[in-house]
């Protein structure tokens, strides 16, 4: 079977096209002047520039983390361009009619129609192309409910008090190397505020697209769910197929006030590189949420893209009775490497967390789960349950599990279960003997393996995730 897997491990990355959009792109390089120019392009207030420069100075003193189970050549941060925007965005479009049709076509090609009438009922979309937000749909309808959903660059102007209060409040500037870099150079992303007691009337989603060559994408997302509110948010990501590696270092911060609930889902399909590991996105992302009393944050991620992934969506369970959840499917193939997992920091009493991680490795890829569960002294009666399953396809890939458990409270309970299994020849033979193509069989077996996670995704995206997995597995068997 292995030989056949190797032979047939070729698939098309469907989102690999390049859009012909005229862009204004900064020359490569990073210094305080570049940061000032980014800030000037965004017409930012002084305090924002100061915040960026402070982060930049912190970043310069830091060094790249090296503990992850991934291997890639050293990044030269002076070779990256830190700002790129479609030229037609210079005079910001007021409505969809004013958006460059080529941009709209790009999103249509990706299966994300931005024309509101054609959209999936009840999903508002923010589309970020390279460094800027192109369009945000359904804004009026959301405004009626008091929900703010806009590009973060706009929020800096319109809602400075909210941004000042919460930006960097969950992920501090000096949290880690990539987060510090993001603070210095972030260009756009989404800002969401749900007022007290409001249940957001529709799914919110942001699609990120890298188009330009040699640019990094540094988006910043901030979601604040005020007391007793609820929001479900989804992000999707794609990039063209290029031989060079591109850096993506995002920061996502979630704030769930008392009794609030945030459901954050990610379908990540950045370009994964070719069969030999050339090209692809370095996906170095910091995602963290803070839960106040009785609040709940649920991270669900389906990760199939990127050549190197370094990502640990986490929950700080500060308030009593708060709940953190992490559901993850990470699929690696060819020479992809993923080091992903979560951190659940239990501070409050009776806090609960659940971690379900499903790693699938094919080809010559390496897939690691890394998770921390910490029970602080105040976490009386706290509970965690972790389940970590790995599925191997073929015999040249690797699956690794690095669980860290730190319990400083004797009344806290931590449970950890882990399994490793293979898509067996027997399973494939059974499926084929019943008339199924081997590819359909593998995708069915893998989908079955991921079922517990997929059921956490919003319905339409669960279908999308299943399809994505199917495409990603194309050619995984002979």
């Amino acid at each position, binding site marked *: *079977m292995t030989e056949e897997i190797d032979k047939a491990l070729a698939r098309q990355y469907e989102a690999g096209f390049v859009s012909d959009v005229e862009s204004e792109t900064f020359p490569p390089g990073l210094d305080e002047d570049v940061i000032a120019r980014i800030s000037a392009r965004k017409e930012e207030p002084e305090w924002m520039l100061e915040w960026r420069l402070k982060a930049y100075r912190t970043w310069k003193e830091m060094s790249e983390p090296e503990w992850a189970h991934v291997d890639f050549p050293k990044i030269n941060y002076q070779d990256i361009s830190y700002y790129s925007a479609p030229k037609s965005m210079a005079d910001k479009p007021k409505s969809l009619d004013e958006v460059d049709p080529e941009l709209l076509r790009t999103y249509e090609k990706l299966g994300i129609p931005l024309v509101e009438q054609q959209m999936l009922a009840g999903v508002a979309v923010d589309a970020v192309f390279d460094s800027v937000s192109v369009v945000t749909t359904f804004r009026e309808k959301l405004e009626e409910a008091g929900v703010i959903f806009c590009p973060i660059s706009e929020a800096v102007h319109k809602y400075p008090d909210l941004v000042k209060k919460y930006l960097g409040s969950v992920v501090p500037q000096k949290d880690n190397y990539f987060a510090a870099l993001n603070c210095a150079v972030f260009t756009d992303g989404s800002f969401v505020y749900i007022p007290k007691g409001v249940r957001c009337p529709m799914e919110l989603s942001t699609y990120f697209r890298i188009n330009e060559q040699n640019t990094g994408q540094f988006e910043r997302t901030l979601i604040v769910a005020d007391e007793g509110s609820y929001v479900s948010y989804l992000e999707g990501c794609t990039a063209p197929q290029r031989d060079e590696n591109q850096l993506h270092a995002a920061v996502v911060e979630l704030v769930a006030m008392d009794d609030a609930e945030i459901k954050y889902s990610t379908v990540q399909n950045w370009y994964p590189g070719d069969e030999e590991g050339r090209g692809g996105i370095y996906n170095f992302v910091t995602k963290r949420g803070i839960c106040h009393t009785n609040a709940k944050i649920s991270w669900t991620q389906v990760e199939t893209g990127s050549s190197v992934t370094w990502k640990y969506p986490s929950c700080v369970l500060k308030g009593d009775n708060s709940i953190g959840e992490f559901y993850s499917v990470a699929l690696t193939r060819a020479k992809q490497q993923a080091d992903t997992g979560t951190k659940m920091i239990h501070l409050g009493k009776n806090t609960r967390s659940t971690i379900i991680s499903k790693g699938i490795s094919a080809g010559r890829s390496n897939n690691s789960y890394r998770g921390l569960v910490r029970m602080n002294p105040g976490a009386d009666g706290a509970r965690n349950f972790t389940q970590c399953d790995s599925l191997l396809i073929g015999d040249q890939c690797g699956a690794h599990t690095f669980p860290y458990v730190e319990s400083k409270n004797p009344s806290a309970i931590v449970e950890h279960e882990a399994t490793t299994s293979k898509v*067996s*020849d*027997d*399973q494939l*033979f*059974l*499926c*084929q*003997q*019943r*008339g*199924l*193509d*081997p590819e*359909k069989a593998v995708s*069915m*077996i893998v*989908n*079955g*393996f*991921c*079922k*517990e996670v997929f059921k956490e995704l919003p319905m339409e995206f669960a279908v999308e995730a299943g399809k994505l997995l199917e495409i990603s597995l194309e050619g995984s068997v002979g």
Partner: protein
Amino acid sequence: MSQAALLSVKGLEAKVEDKTILKGLDLEIKPGEVHAIMGPNGAGKSTLGYVLSGREGYEVVGGEATLAGTELLDIDIEERSRAGLFLAFQYPVEIPGVSNLEFLKSSVDAHREAQGLEPISSKEFLKEAREACKQVNLPAEFLKRGVNEGFSGGEKKRNEIMQMLLLKPKLCILDESDSGLDIDALQVVAEGVNSMRDGERSFVVVTHYQRLLDYIKPDFVHVLSDGKIVKSGDASLALELEAQGYSWLTEQRSADPIEMHKEVM
């Protein structure tokens, strides 16, 4: 009058790794017939089913096999299935998280697609599947459970028969479907098979014991030994074997019975 064979196997030779297991096997099965294949362990009984269905690792080195005119040995495993070949496994494997219903519908749809038909409607399929469940005495909730996930041995075997009922193959090969079954489960399996006998569909019942043949009456019984059919007869041959064992047939053929008795999977 002579009727065209449904399955025709001529001079079939096959090996696993470097060991030749089938050494020139001939078998002809006409529509509607039930053939029992008996024989000592290691004779190649399971190998026959695997070779005909195309399992990896079983290399054909000679001979031919046609099913309803289709050259079996030239086509992929799934194409053989769609051509009407069904193998009920001795040890059905589990597929966690994939519901029986999803698995069965995908299989049925793959068969339909090969025949140029649209996928079956979910409603219609559910009705058929529930009916099949009832027939093999499995509660309908088994349709929602993962394929063979946590099933008992008997439930797995009944699940195989349920798949057979839904796929409606031309030729069913039952690979020791009686092994590990109590008498009640055995009857359920046999009833499932008997309900499908319609004068067109044919069966190959591979078994070590005569017991199953009390419930599924064969038209022919063959003794497979050292990779060949060494004796054929009617149902009475099975009784004879039950009474006398295999040694009277096999000793005259091989001077090395130990070699022959090695289990080959």
